[in-house]
């Protein structure tokens, strides 16, 4: 284990906090719980352990057996078998960013290509090598905006239509900065972005919106971006990468930072992770971003090669003055996304997006015509939509699960105003039969 403190430093720190010994730090934990006697059963053979674990795994309900209409940030897409097979090659199988270009050209090139794909999808100039997930990438956007204005702008505005978990993680990240105001998401969840405009002032560092938003809605935010820029603030957009294969890019509409969850790009749902956060910016901000960057160069003999670049921003050089202490990337999952997008190609990814779009619109039209169910949003959407239900979403989902259907997200969990509202996601994985079956099953509950 690497212990960075000398005994003298440890002593000084203990003195500073007024504790006599290291053990004293744990006094808040009652003695009986500090080293409890573990009452473990006798060991099992490997065969027995495998059987036991299999039993536990079989207790899970998975999207392999269920018709899945749940999204809300993680989406069920088809992952070609080649993704996993290439991913598990020994040459690639590491979670870490390689430091030494002499021995890591393959991995570095794959990260460079990942960055290029993200730049292409988002319409930005620079992408880093990735973050943990969409939520942490969104939080890093706020950290960057804070440092961009040297802490002089203290207001961060979050649209209520940004994924509630992302907003929560962002608040946690920004918790240690003094005098910040993170607001904007207290209002009616389904309002349009224009409602946020009165909040944007000369003290605003960043405005965060989502595209398509948490409710699946899509709108051109170019005018809104202009309003944000008039106040000199930065516009960060959390985007769904599948949608970007079909829709106008956030970069084209004036986003300064584009972040998002990369899971839809060839990464299985896996009960919640590990996932992939992507983070891209306009060139002006390249020295302010967190994370690693791989650049293309030539070696002493003029041959094309790849290296980590602009590392002076990072904590091992800039120490406490670095924008962020996060240098870790999701190397393996970024590779999965790279392989996935490469396999599908530009047209293939667009085809996936079109299938999602058309199937979800078919589903929305059918569900909207069931008595008791009502589509809340009449404008454009991508592959997710909000339905007002005739009863409690929890009860409806229990009924659906009895019929082998994983129902939509219960929006009342995050938005009290949206009690009895369900967020339904439809992807290329949902056949027409499945959608029809969902509608029939919902219809059984249309009358109390």
């Amino acid at each position, binding site marked *: 284990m690497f212990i960075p403190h000398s005994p003298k430093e440890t002593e000084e720190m203990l003195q500073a906090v007024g504790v006599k010994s290291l053990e004293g730090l744990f006094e808040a934990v009652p003695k009986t719980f500090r080293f409890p006697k573990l009452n473990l059963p006798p060991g099992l053979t490997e065969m027995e352990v495998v059987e036991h674990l299999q039993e536990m795994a079989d207790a899970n309900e998975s999207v392999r057996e269920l018709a899945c209409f749940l999204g809300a940030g993680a989406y069920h897409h088809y992952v070609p078998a080649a993704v996993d097979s290439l991913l598990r090659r020994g040459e690639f199988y590491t979670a870490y960013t390689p430091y030494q270009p002499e021995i890591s050209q393959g991995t570095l090139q794959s990260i460079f290509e990942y960055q290029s794909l993200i730049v292409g999808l988002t319409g930005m100039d620079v992408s880093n090598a990735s973050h943990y997930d969409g939520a942490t990438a969104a939080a890093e956007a706020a950290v960057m905006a804070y440092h961009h204005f*040297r802490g002089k702008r203290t207001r961060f505005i979050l649209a209520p239509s940004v994924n509630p978990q992302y907003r929560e993680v962002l608040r946690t990240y920004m918790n240690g900065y003094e005098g910040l105001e993170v607001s904007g998401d207290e209002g009616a969840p389904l309002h349009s972005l224009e409602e946020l405009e009165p909040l944007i002032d000369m003290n605003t560092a960043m405005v965060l919106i989502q595209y398509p938003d948490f409710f699946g809605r899509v709108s051109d935010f170019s005018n809104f971006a202009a309003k944000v820029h008039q106040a000199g603030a930065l516009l960060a957009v959390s985007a769904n990468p599948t949608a970007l294969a079909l829709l106008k890019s956030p970069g084209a509409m004036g986003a300064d930072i584009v972040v998002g969850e990369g899971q839809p790009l060839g990464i299985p749902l896996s009960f919640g992770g590990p996932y992939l956060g992507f983070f891209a910016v306009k060139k002006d901000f390249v*020295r302010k971003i967190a994370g690693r960057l791989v650049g293309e160069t030539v070696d002493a003999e003029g041959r094309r090669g790849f290296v980590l670049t602009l590392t*002076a*921003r990072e904590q091992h*050089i*800039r120490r406490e*003055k670095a924008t962020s202490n996060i240098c870790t990337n999701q190397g393996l999952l970024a590779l999965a996304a790279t392989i996935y997008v490469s396999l599908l190609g530009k047209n293939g990814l667009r085809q996936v997006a079109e299938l999602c779009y058309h199937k979800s619109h078919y589903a929305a039209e059918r569900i909207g015509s069931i008595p008791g169910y009502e589509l809340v949003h009449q404008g454009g959407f991508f592959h997710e939509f909000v339905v007002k239900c005739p009863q409690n979403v929890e009860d409806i989902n229990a009924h659906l699960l009895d019929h082998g259907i994983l129902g939509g997200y219960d929006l009342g969990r995050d938005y009290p105003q949206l009690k009895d509202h369900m967020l339904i996601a439809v992807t290329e994985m949902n056949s027409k039969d499945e959608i029809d079956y969902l509608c029939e099953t919902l219809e059984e509950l249309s009358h109390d």
Partner: protein
Amino acid sequence: MDVPEHLKYAKTDEWVKVDGNIATIGISDYAQSQLSDIVYFEFKVDVGEEARKDKTIATVESVKAAADVNAPVSGVVVELNESLNDLFETINTDPFGAAWMVKLELADPSEVDQLMDAAAYKKYCEERGH
């Protein structure tokens, strides 16, 4: 190593030139040669802002390191050498001339007296080795 006679120097390798109540600040030839090739420069203060002694007024990034430029004396920022945003290479080629960084209106002229003169700074650099 170049150490112009008419300037004052700080332990953190900034130089100061005083004209009336205006102090011009940059980094020394020793500092730029230690950093080697500069690849980026950024101001950390704006015109009109008060820069206290030892506060970071700019950062310099080279292929080897990132370093802060600190105000050797206190004062209100009256001018920034904006050309450095693009022409940061001049920090390597002309640290005492074209690469001046910030002009301050001195808050306390006695702070200048606490800085080293050329002879003392030269000795200070030699002690640290080249």
